[in-house]
Every structure is written in structure tokens, then in C-alpha cells.
């Protein structure tokens, strides 16, 4: 395997690891440190006082709770609707023959063929006429568009990778279509579909552009609140604590979805 890297000590790897650690982990560590800091004044390199004082203050704010509730409600609603309409479609694309199947399957790429914010502005123009600006359902619709490709393409790949011989064997011993689906197809495709659902929830939870353009100020999600904290909030710790809170769903996704992301099929979904 080691065709290009022959040295005993992997210097290339060590240099890359150090540079990437500094560039990627260091900024996040700084935010994490600020979240657990009571006092940190320039020019001290480390905080003068560590503590949890600002956690109480941040969690005591009504706007933080309202936006947490709003983000969770939105992400749950969008994910449930998305799963309800996309999973049957994914099954149909993977298993059934019908006219225009390929064309319809690739039509989901349309949303990724245009610069995203430009598309959002074009949609906002239509929502303006329909009085959907500033409404919960306006934000749900715009976020739903963002989940369509993921929630169809990843499950299609999952349904396709199910061992058809096992399904046939189950049918041969008399299992009905729903029994086959429940006992054979779903257990095999399930983990990948669960990862797609998780990624869809996390993607919606962090969606900022649509929520800001269509929803704000009436619909204020956690990322939208974070924007106003960054722009108008002189207390750094509020933003830092909110960042740590905000990262929780991503951390869960990191634990569960990394294998799917690392697999070749994920990159192929992006054209790799």
C-alpha cells in the first residue's frame, strides 16, 4: 500500500496532523474555553478565573429558551415530514419501474445546481406573494427543500444494497410483502436510513440562511439568535455558551454518522 510514503517515520502525516490540529481544533478549543470562563482580560494568555457563572445567565434568558424550543420544533417537524414523503419515494426509486424514473430521480439535483442563497431569494420572492414570510410554515417549507436530496439519495443507496436473495428466500418460505420489508429489507437498510434522518435533523437544526431570510424576526432559531449575539452582544461568554449548546446535535451526529460520511458512497453522492 505505502507506495508514495516509504519512510519509517511518517513525517508528512505528522506535519499535516499538527497543521490541521492548529487550524481546525484550536479555534474551537478557544470557544470552549470562553464558555467556561468567568474572567479573561487582555493581555492574559489564560483566563483569570474559570467558572460556570455565564451558563446560569445564558440559560436564564427567555430568548435563548424560545429559540431552543423553536429550533427543536422546526427540525423535528421538517425531519418527520421529510421522512414521511421521501422514504416511500426512495423505495420507489430503488425498487419500482415507472415512466420517467431516471429523470425524476435526477430532478432532485436541481436544488444543488444553483447557488443556494440565490435560490432562497428567488423562493422568498414567491413566499412574499403567498404571505409566507415571517411564518413557521414558510421556514418549514424552505428547510424541507434542503433535506430532499439527502433523504432520497442516501436511502435509495441503502435500499439498493439490501441482499435481494434474502428477500426472495423469505418470500419462498411464504412471507408476505410487508413481512419481507419489515424483517429483511428494513433491518439491512435501517442504519443508513437512520443516519440520513439524523443528518437531515442536524442539517435543519443548523440551517441559518433560510430561517434568517424567511423567518426572522418572528421565527427566531438558535443559529439566528447566535447571529444577533455575535453582532450586538458585548458579553463574549453568552456567544461561547450558546456555541457549546448549539454544538450538541452536531456532536451526536459526529458519533453516529461518521461511518456513513467516511464511506465512498457519501462522496459519490456529491459527485466524487
Amino acid at each position: 500500500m505505502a507506495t508514495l510514503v516509504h519512510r519509517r517515520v511518517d513525517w508528512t502525516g505528522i506535519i499535516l496532523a499538527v497543521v490541521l490540529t492548529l487550524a481546525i481544533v484550536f479555534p474551537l478549543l478557544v470557544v470552549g474555553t470562553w464558555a467556561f470562563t468567568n474572567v479573561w482580560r487582555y493581555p492574559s494568555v489564560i483566563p483569570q478565573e474559570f467558572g460556570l457563572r455565564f451558563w446560569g445567565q445564558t440559560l436564564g434568558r427567555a430568548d435563548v429558551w424560545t429559540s431552543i424550543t423553536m429550533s427543536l420544533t422546526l427540525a423535528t417537524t421538517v425531519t418527520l415530514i421529510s421522512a414521511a414523503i421521501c422514504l416511500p419515494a426512495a423505495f420507489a426509486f430503488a425498487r419500482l419501474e415507472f415512466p420517467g424514473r431516471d429523470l425524476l430521480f435526477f430532478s432532485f439535483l436541481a436544488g444543488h445546481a444553483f447557488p443556494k442563497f440565490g435560490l432562497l431569494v428567488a423562493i422568498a420572492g414567491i413566499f412574499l406573494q403567498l404571505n409566507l414570510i415571517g411564518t413557521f410554515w414558510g421556514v418549514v417549507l424552505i428547510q424541507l427543500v434542503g433535506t430532499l436530496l439527502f433523504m432520497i439519495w442516501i436511502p435509495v443507496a441503502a435500499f439498493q444494497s439490501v441482499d435481494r436473495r434474502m428477500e426472495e428466500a423469505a418470500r419462498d418460505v411464504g412471507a408476505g410483502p410487508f413481512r419481507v420489508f419489515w424483517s429483511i429489507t428494513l433491518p439491512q437498510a435501517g442504519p443508513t436510513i437512520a443516519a440520513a434522518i439524523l443528518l437531515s435533523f442536524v442539517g435543519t437544526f443548523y440551517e441559518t440562511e433560510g430561517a434568517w431570510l424567511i423567518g426572522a424576526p418572528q421565527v427566531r432559531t438558535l443559529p439566528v439568535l447566535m447571529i444577533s449575539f455575535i453582532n450586538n452582544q458585548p458579553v463574549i461568554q453568552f456567544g461561547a455558551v450558546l456555541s457549546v449548546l448549539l454544538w450538541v446535535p452536531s456532536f451526536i451526529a459526529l458519533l453516529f454518522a461518521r461511518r456513513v460520511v467516511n464511506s465512498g458512497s457519501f462522496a459519490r453522492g456529491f459527485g466524487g
Partner: protein
Amino acid sequence: MPASPERRRPVGLLLVAVPVLLVLWLVIWPIISAVITTIWLRTPEGTQFSLETYRFFFSDGYSLSNLSVTLWTTGVCAILLLVICLPIALYLRFSDSKVAAYVQGLAIFPMFVPSIILSFALIRVLGPNGTVDLLLNAISLPKIRSPYLTPWGPVIGLVWDNIPLTVLILLSGLGNVSNQSIEAARDVGAGRFALLWHIILPRITNSILVAISFAVLGIFSAFTLPYILGPAAPEMMGPFMQRTFRDLYDPTSAITQAVVTFGFCIVFGLFYVRSVAKNRTP
């Protein structure tokens, strides 16, 4: 599923109908409608064909400087992404050391960090009196000229944000380069550079173009990072469109700006869709 051919047709179409209609209503129609509303303008005498909004955009100094800063940012980011991610992908493809797993984990990690947290982190590190300033001060060096609120702020953020998918797409392309072809070239005396230039690059050209197209489509109308890290003026197209739509309440001009971004990205969009479609069949 066992189903007779006669039954299959309506069932398949029925199952895919809702998401397909959503795509038609919320992707295809807004794009067509955007073009129509910007060339058929409403006047007191009724709607009439006019290119006035585009004429205004391409004669307005502020719009043009926003467009050029967007083009500059996109170009610089695309080059930087390639320069940073290609060595990482090459290393990951041809190394099996333990460090490689750590490097891969780090390269993919930004995918799990939302842009809004990244923006805040970069302000705390690179902004005025940020951590870099603290460290420089500790070793008696002068403060840096912070990239925050300059055109370099969004560049740093956007490159950071786009590393994972660029690495994954390049890595997926490098999977097509067989070890045998590398070994064969080495046997006839090819050096590292010759290997890269004559064996590897020709085989991953398509992946490089896909990675660049994907990055360009994402960066050209990026909003969060340029809005928070970038200068107030000139601004990138994302914040410009947002301000025109929401703050100036001028949807027609905002939609004109959106159509202009579509125009600049259409080649990348078509190429991207074609490549992805070629790689996947339902």
C-alpha cells in the same frame, strides 16, 4: 416487492409524486419565476418587457464592486482549497500509517461544525484582541492586522468550511488510481512529480473539476460567513441580496441579483449535475 407490471406504474409515480412536486414548486418554478419577474416589469400601464433592473445592476458601481469581490473571493477560495486539499487527499490515499486516520478525522471534522459556530470561533481567535494577539503579545511581538471584517475574513472561513467535502470528493477520485499503475510507473523510473503529473492528475481531473464546481456553487452566494466575518462594503452577493430583500425591501432588485448569480454559476452547476448524474443510477 412482488407486483404485477400493470400495478407498478401508478404506484411508483404515486410514491415519488410529493417530493417531485415540491422540487417543481420550490426549485424549478422560483427560478423560472425569478427570470420572468425581472424581465416583465410591472408598470402603471401594465406589465411590459424591460431589462431595466439588469441595466441598473451592471451600471451601478456598488453592485459591480460587490460582484467583483464575490468573484475574487470565489476564485481565491477555489485555488486555496485545491492547494490545501489535494496534498491531504494524496496523503490519505497512499498512506496506511496510524497518523492517516487522525488526519482523515481532522479533515472531515469541519463538516460537523456549523458555520455560525465557526464564525464566532474565528472572531475570538483572529479578531482584535483575539487569541492570536494574546499569544503574539506574550512573546513581545506586535498585534496582527486582523483579517476579520476584511475580504480575507470570509476567505478563511469559507476555505475552512469547504475542506471536508473537497477532500472527500478528491479522495473518491483518487480511488480510481490503481496501485499497479503507480508501481508500474515507479518501475520505469518515474519520480514523485512525474507520478503526480503523468499518472495521478490525468485520472482525477474530473474529480478536481467536480470539487471546484461544488465549492464555487457554495461560495458564490454564501451568506453566513461573509455576513459575519466580511466587510460591510463592498459585500459578497449573499449579504448583498439579503440586505436588498429584507432591509431595503426591494425584492425585484434582490431577485435580479439572484439571477445574476445563477448566470455566473450556470456552467459549474451544469457540470456538477452532469458528473453526479453520471456516477449514480437509481
